[in-house]
């Protein structure tokens, strides 16, 4: 079945090519009128007050970490969901359901803990 992915690979190359070609065309065809104030960072017309590289609120990192946790949960659910209906016709249905229930409940405990720790509150 690998050969069905060949078009995807070709499109990757085509997309990169199209992007680079259009950007270089823009360089060639577009205007060239450089001056220092044009290349200065945009700060609503005010001269730059202080540095732009500042510390970022830790909550953004927190959200990223929580995302990894819960998205992996979703990733684990996918293969289970695909075989669930076929398996539930046999005897394995109850077992599959129970296994996933335990998994979700364990994550649910973590979810409640994180909620109580106010990690979801943006204040």
């Amino acid at each position, binding site marked *: 079945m690998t050969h069905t*992915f060949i078009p995807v690979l070709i*499109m990757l190359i085509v997309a990169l090519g199209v*992007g*680079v070609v259009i*950007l270089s065309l823009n360089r060639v065809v577009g205007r060239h009128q450089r001056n220092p104030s044009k290349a200065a960072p945009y700060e609503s017309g005010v001269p730059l007050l202080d540095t732009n590289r500042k510390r970022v609120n830790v909550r953004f990192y927190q*959200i990223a970490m929580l995302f990894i946790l819960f998205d992996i949960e979703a990733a684990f659910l996918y293969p289970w969901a695909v075989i669930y209906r076929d398996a539930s016709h046999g005897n394995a249905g109850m077992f599959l359901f129970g296994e996933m229930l335990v998994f979700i409940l364990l994550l649910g405990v973590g979810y409640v803990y994180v909620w109580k720790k106010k990690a*979801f509150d*943006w204040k």
Partner: protein
Amino acid sequence: MNPWMLYLVWPLIKFLIAFVIVQVIVAAMNWIERRVLGLIQARLGPNRVGPWGLLQIVADPIKFLLKEDIVPSSAEKIAYFLGPMLPLVPAFIVFCLIPFGPPPTFAVTHTNVGLLLILALTSTGVYGIILGGWASNNKYSLMGGLRSAAQMVSYEVPFGLSIVGVLMLCGSLDLVHIINYQAHHVWNVFPQLIAAFIFFVSMNAENNRTPFDLPEAESELVAGYHTEYSAMKFAFFMLAEYSAMLVNCCLMVSLFLGGWTLAIGGYGLTTATLKSMGFMGGLLGTVIFVVKVMTFMMIYIWFRATFPRFRFDQLMDLGWKWMIPLALINIFVTGIVVLAAPEMIINGSVVPVGETILAVAGAATVALTLFLIMKPRAHAPKVIHASRVSEA
């Protein structure tokens, strides 16, 4: 057939056709959006270039091409270049995985894990946004990029979880199989009403569209992550955004609204019926698909004209405290129903008992929610119309 023809030449030809059509739709969407917004706000919108302003679709790219490509002196050069390129590439590739009509003729390629690959590719779009925001070396850009990343990442979870219910009913990651399943049972919106709702809200948030357009909040952040971008690089961000919208609408239609089919319980325009009509049948299927997709694109525009913007804490609350538990409950209920009520076969035709139960339960939940929202509150403030202020 020659394998080179089958896996290289044909997909390339089909991709080029799909590519051109998609790019025209994306460019046209920009014009349609401005016109429709104009109509909603009782003004004209762009109507100068060509009849009804239609040539605006051509004029915009030409103008983007002729503008100066400004790179800020303080920008990180390589990352600044990669910023618009990274979201553009997945936006292009994804279209060869979406079946626009009955395969093999109307889909560029047909894989058994198409849905998984589409989800993986679309979620890489966030890299370009945060990289572009950071590389611009501008406070507005950085803030827009960070907000966008946090928002897209937060809504990725309910987005992914809402699809699980559909997978449990259809038992496949193949979009063609999911669409055929819906034609022979019932559209997934009915048994998966809650999931469809979560999917729709999350896809709005994923695309940074109103009411979730905080990364581009022009009153706070100028233009968000693309403040420092000009000319074609800016156009690439726009292109990627509109392509992502189109992809999400295609997914919504394929997963919940029966894709190119127009059938229920195997009656109506199923894949087999369309295929028996030959090429014209396939074309008809594609037209049905595009009409459904464009309906959702119109809803995007309608939302943009109607809703005010969320606050960032409200946005995070909605995502983490409402959407994720709701999606998990949906999976739980679907699991019980699939386990307890398998399909019944009466007189040789499949009767979807589980789907019916889920549809009734979903409709009941929605009715209850609406009832609770609409119920007048005991301490609701009395609303006085502006013209009657002096009397009160």
